[in-house]
């Protein structure tokens, strides 16, 4: 058991005992990998686990905790704090009802990856220490330089011809089983009524055809354009391995280039498509 895990267990136990939070979202040992868990009693804290293989994706659980009084804790590394910030900026989570137990992090990996390769996001991570927290656990990480975002995969796709690119995406999208896991886990996708769930207007039929797959993936990606926090959970939870982050990162890069938004993945006061400048680039004339 790591020192961070011990400190976390103590902190969670204390917070619950003192009544500062009425529950804490974290992980416990699962069948094959860490499983999300909601701790409500101090004596349960001994089951809490924390390691680089603990997946993110806890932030969305806060949505179910907004009806009751009192704060709910969430164990969050830097990138997961960005996810919480996204939900707070979108006014879906009341900041007073979330208690962020920030944990410093060097890098993390997908628990399903036997080789334990760090996520792509970890290479350019600028939030080894969470940008916002109510309680911080772990030593500051100062010795890991952050590299610039690597867009070489997107450049490579852009070098292809349009037809080849279309073929590529059709091949990717054709595997989609429309499980909506990418939407459900996404901290930027939290509309009370999702356009994919309403029958009228029927934006997406139940039919599985190339045309409907494009509609789904275009809409999903565009709805998070300028709002994605680069948590990469969509890609992690996708059961068929569609490179969804390629779409999200392509949009983020364009947001940065077109609208001079320095850090497109950090939730700002206003979102890029909810604002404008009179001197934005003019291509339409």
């Amino acid at each position, binding site marked *: 058991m790591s020192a961070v895990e011990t400190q976390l267990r103590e902190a969670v136990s204390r917070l619950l005992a003192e009544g500062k939070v009425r529950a804490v979202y974290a992980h416990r040992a699962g069948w094959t990998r860490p499983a999300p868990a909601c701790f409500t009693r101090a004596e349960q804290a001994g089951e809490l686990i924390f390691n680089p293989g603990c997946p993110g994706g806890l932030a969305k659980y806060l949505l179910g905790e907004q009806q009751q009084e009192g704060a709910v804790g969430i164990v969050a590394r830097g990138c997961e704090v960005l996810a919480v910030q996204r939900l707070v900026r979108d006014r879906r989570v009341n900041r007073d009802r979330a208690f962020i137990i920030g944990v410093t992090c060097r890098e993390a990996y997908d628990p399903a990856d036997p080789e334990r390769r760090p996520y792509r996001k970890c290479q350019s991570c600028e939030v080894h220490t969470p940008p916002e927290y109510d309680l911080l656990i772990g030593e500051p990480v100062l010795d890991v330089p952050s590299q610039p975002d690597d867009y070489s995969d997107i450049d490579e796709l852009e070098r292809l011809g349009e037809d080849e690119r279309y073929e590529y995406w059709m091949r990717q999208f054709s595997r989609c089983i429309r499980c909506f896991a990418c939407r459900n886990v996404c901290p930027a996708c939290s509309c009370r009524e999702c356009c994919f769930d309403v029958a009228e207007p029927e934006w997406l039929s139940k039919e599985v*055809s*190339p045309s409907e797959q494009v509609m789904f993936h275009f809409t999903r990606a565009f709805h998070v354009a300028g709002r994605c926090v680069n948590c990469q959970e969509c890609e992690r939870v996708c059961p068929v391995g569609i490179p969804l982050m390629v779409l999200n990162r392509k949009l983020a890069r364009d947001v940065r280039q077109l609208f001079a938004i320095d850090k497109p993945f950090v939730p700002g006061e206003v979102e890029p*498509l909810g604002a404008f400048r*009179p001197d934005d680039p003019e291509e339409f*004339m």
Partner: protein
Amino acid sequence: MNVAPADWEPRIIGFCCNWCSYAGADLAGTSRMAYPPSVRIIRVPCSGRVNPQFIVRAFQRGADGVLVAGCHPGDCHYTSGNYFTRRRFLLARRFLEFLGIDPRRFQARWISGSEGQKFAEVIREMTDQIRALGPNRKMRDEAI
């Protein structure tokens, strides 16, 4: 291979804002300016009304090209709608291109109520470009 049937003519869906571009199209008509009958105009209250999903839906239902037309920047009837349109479709156009759609199939233009001539020219120009590209098969619903 993208082989156009002999009687094929481009089908363009034109989203025109009520206050400028629709009036521009009206002016082109009342001034008897000739332009290709390839455009099907859908009147919207503001170019800011145009959801990017409309573009995909148009391609799904058989459009060969989509045009979004609104007031010039600064002239929006609702003060700022077209500025949002501009950001949205700057991004959408690049994104559609990234998904493999030729950017000439999706265009946005600023056309004021007094620019009947410009409306006719835009339709002529876009029709010529799309005629050269041939029918659109991408994103298209197979039943159509």
